[in-house]
Structure formats: C-alpha cells, structure tokens
C-alpha cells in the first residue's frame, strides 16, 4: 500500500499553547483512518493544517509525494483534498442545491464567468441532485439551507465533500450533535463511501470509530501516542490510560 498523505514532525503553537506537538502520521491509500483524542487534543488544529486554512510552524505535509505544507487551501482542493467542517459551515443564505453545485463547479476550472445565469445549467443541477440523492436529501434540494435540521446539514457536508470528487476526504466530526438514529444513518452513509476514497476521520463517537475505521491514531496534547487497528488500539495500555480510561 502507498501512503496518500504523510505528516512529518508537525508543530504549531498559539501564543504559549502548543496545539500540535511533533506530530507524525500516515494515511494509506484507500483506508479509513480515524483520529481520536480527548477534548483539546488538537484535532481541529490538525485538520486545519491538513486542509491549508492554518499553516504549521515547522514540519512537513506530503500528499501523493508532493510537499503541500505551505499550499493555501484553495490550491489543495484541485489536488483532490476535500474537508467537512465540525461546526456546520454551509452557505446558509443559499439553497441546498446551490451549496452542492458550488462544490461541483469548483472542479470545472475558474468561475470568472459573468454572463450566464448558473441556475440554467441543467447538467450541473442533475449532478448535484444525484449527490443529494446519495445522502437522502434530494427532496429538499430547493429548500433554503438555513431551513434544514442539524442532521441534514451534516449530510449536506458529506454530499459537498463527495461533490468535490476528492481522493482524500478530511471529515471533521461528522457525527457531532447527531441523535441516535441520525448517527446510525451517518455510519451507514460513511460505510457506503468507504473504500472509494481515502478518508481521514476525526470523531468523538467511539462506537462509530471502532465500527468504521481500518486504523486508528490516538492524539493526546497534540501528539500521536499510538496507531493501529481497532483491536490493537483497544488493547493498548497507554491509550487506555490516557484516553479510554477517562470515559
């Protein structure tokens, strides 16, 4: 197996607080790699650096053998990296389908096109509808985004990540704030896309992580203390001590 993403010796601090501490990590092509860790472990800062919204102080991020450490976010997306956000960050003023078509259009070169009204683009609309269908939201395509429930917003996030046709998906806590039934649906949804994309999943929900992940890395105070299969992680004493023991 080859590694699609490799992180070497990443460091990032804010003021006096170290959020990422000499972090090293590899994601194999095609695997679903989960990152777990207690609150404040630096999960969101890590995903920020991987997606290019934040830059590390030192260290290296390599994607498909290319150094992307300092590449801004908008140039990572065309390489095949997509992310979802922990705090739902859709464009609330737009309709559901407009949010998804934004993701599709990003794949079609620049958008410095001033004349044609976008809503008249049939092919784009069909593509977006197909994506919404996959996450079960096709019937709500023309609703304003703001009118949908939290669980539906989470599904939109996945549809958008899918729409970016990413080879590597960075998913930031897709289960956050979901009810029991919605969580089950989300696990099914993630299972259905697993294997077709390489996925780095950051998640609090232990049941979901152990059900889905090929491998798990445990992040504590900005540092990976263990990486392994779900069974290995379950059995790891350091992990139990640092993290699972506190549950």
């Amino acid at each position, binding site marked *: 197996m080859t590694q699609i993403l490799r992180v070497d010796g990443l460091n990032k601090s804010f003021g006096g607080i170290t959020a990422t501490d000499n972090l090293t990590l590899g994601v194999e092509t095609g695997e679903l790699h989960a990152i777990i860790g207690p609150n404040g472990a630096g999960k969101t800062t890590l995903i920020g650096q991987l*997606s*290019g*919204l934040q830059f590390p102080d030192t260290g290296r991020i390599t994607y498909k053998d290319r150094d992307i450490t300092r590449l*801004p*976010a*908008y*140039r*990572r*997306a*065309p390489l095949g990296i*997509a*992310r979802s*956000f922990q705090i739902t*960050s*859709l*464009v*609330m*003023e*737009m*309709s559901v389908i*407009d949010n998804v*078509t*934004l*993701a599709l*259009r*990003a*794949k079609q070169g620049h*958008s*410095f*096109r*001033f*004349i*044609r*009204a*976008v*809503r008249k683009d049939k092919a784009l609309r069909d593509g977006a509808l197909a994506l919404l269908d996959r996450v079960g939201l096709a019937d709500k395509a023309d609703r*304003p985004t703001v009118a949908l429930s939290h669980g539906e917003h989470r599904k939109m996030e996945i549809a*958008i990540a899918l729409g*970016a046709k990413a080879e590597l998906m960075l998913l930031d806590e897709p289960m956050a704030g979901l009810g029991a039934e919605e969580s089950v649906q989300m696990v099914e949804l993630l299972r259905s896309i697993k294997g077709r994309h390489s996925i780095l999943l950051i998640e609090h929900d232990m049941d979901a992580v152990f059900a889905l992940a090929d491998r798990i890395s445990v992040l504590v105070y900005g540092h990976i203390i263990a990486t392994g299969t779900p069974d290995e992680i379950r059995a790891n004493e350091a992990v139990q001590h640092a993290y699972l023991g506190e549950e």
Partner: protein
Amino acid sequence: MTRQDWIAVIMLALLAVLPPLFIWTGQYFWMDLATRLVILAIAASSLNLVLGFGGLVSFGHAAFVGLGAYAVGIPAYHWLYGGMDAIAVTNGFTQFGLAIGVTAFFALITGMICLRTRGVYFIMITMAFAQMIYYGIVSIEEYGGDDGLVIDTRSEFPLIDLDDPLQLYGLCWVSLLVVVLFVRMIVRSRFGMVLQGGKGNEERMATLGYNVYAYQLVAYVISGAICGYAGALLGNFTTFISPEMMDWTRSGELMFMVILGGASTLAGPIIGATMFIVLEEVLSSWTVYWHLPFGLFLILVVLYIRGGLTGLLSGKKGEGE
C-alpha cells in the same frame, strides 16, 4: 421575474415617468432632486455589489465617486485654462473612460491591500484610503484645493446635449437601468455565486478550491469603476466638483442607502437612495438642524430592527428565490 425584480421595475418606471412631468410643469427643483437620486442610486448599486452580495463593508466608496467627478473636472479645467494638453478635452468618451479607468486602477491597488484584511480592519482601511485621496486632491491647489473646481463645460457626446436637464437626466436613467441589469447578471452568474458563497463562508469556499480573494478583488474593481462612472455623471450634473464629494461622511450615506434600502437586493439601493433624498429634503425643509433627526433615525433603526442591520444583511434571501 422575482418580487425584487418587480419592485426594481416599478421604481425605474416611476423614475422614467415623473421627471419629464416635472419639466413640463416647470418643477426644476424636483427635476434636480430626481437627477441626484438616480446618480446616487447608481453609486449605491455598485456599493451593493461588494457590500450586499460580497459581504465586504467598504467605508470608502465616496472616494470613487469623487475621483470619477474629478476625471471630468480636471480635463475640462485644462481645456478651459490650458496646460496638460494630453487630457485637455471635453469629449465625453474620453472623460468617462478616464473616470472608469482611474477608479478601476485605484480600486485594484487599494483592493489588493484592503482585501488581505478582514472585519473591522477592512472597514478602517477602506476609510483611510478614501481619506488619502481626499487629502491628495485638497493638496493640489491648481484644482482648487479645499474650494473645489467649477467647470463651465459639460462632457460632449454625439447626439445628446448634457446642458439640457432632461437629456442629462435621460443619460443618468439609462445608466441606472444598465447598471441594475449588469449587477443582476453578475450576481446570477457563476462569478456571482462564488462571490456570495465567499460572503457566507469563506473557509468553506477555500477548501472547495476557490481563491476567494481573487473573486472579491474583481468585484471590488467592478464596483469601484461603476462608482467612478456615477461620479462622472455627478460632475456633469453639479458642474462643481469639490473634495467634499469624497468626505467619509458621504461614504457613510452610501452605506445608509444600501443597508436601509435592502442590501443584496436589486431594488434596495434605488429604494435607499430615494429614502435618503426624501428624508434629506423633508427634514431640511423643516429645520436647518436636519442632521439631528436624521442621525437619531439612523441610530433607532440600527437599535430596533430585529437582529440588527447585519442580520438584515445576511438573513435576507439573496435575489432570485
């Protein structure tokens, strides 16, 4: 056609019908007001492109208006009094072209710096750059400095005579129509969707692969150029061009028009400009201290509109729904 579009159509139709009536009935005062209203509506529409649709709170748009006016005034001045032969013309295409070119260039240079910043920095920096142009113009004594520049000659175009109030008004009205249609086209285009997406959520747009900065910069340049065009019309209308046109309080008034009329709607800037002109006229006919009730009105509106004006700005549906 959406409801917003219909409101814009009705406003434009009223503005097409009323002024000729003013002329026939000899109400030149009202005619002047209508002309100023239409010019302000053009400037407000262009501000709306960045403020309403782009979410960029520019507090310096009066500088573009002023620069546009001086792009008419300075060539006219040299044509009248000599010097600077290269630009000493009264040809309208040259003057208006200059207005658009200069303001687009100024928007490009300042936009490149302003757009690197966000939030309150952006507000203050757009304000500061506008003030820079204000002081720059004031310092050039040849063009009247503080006192401004009186030009006795308007831009010359084939077929139309801007010395005739009705023809000048016609040009302004057609310009407003074109600008409104232009803004409508832009916000519905792919470019417009990205611009509005950047207003709603910049990080999301970046991770999708959009370089939001570039889109915002282009929108800022387009907006500045339209404001410059409005300034060229204003210079022709007043034939008196002064730095006061670009005082930052003028920028504040433009913001007032966009926000109170309805940001990120097509009709909003026209409604806002109308509200502003009406308030100004009604209040100032009432008392010389009209800025007092005007200021109080502004404060009360901000305080008591539910969710605030920012809520009004983001909560309102974008056009086309």
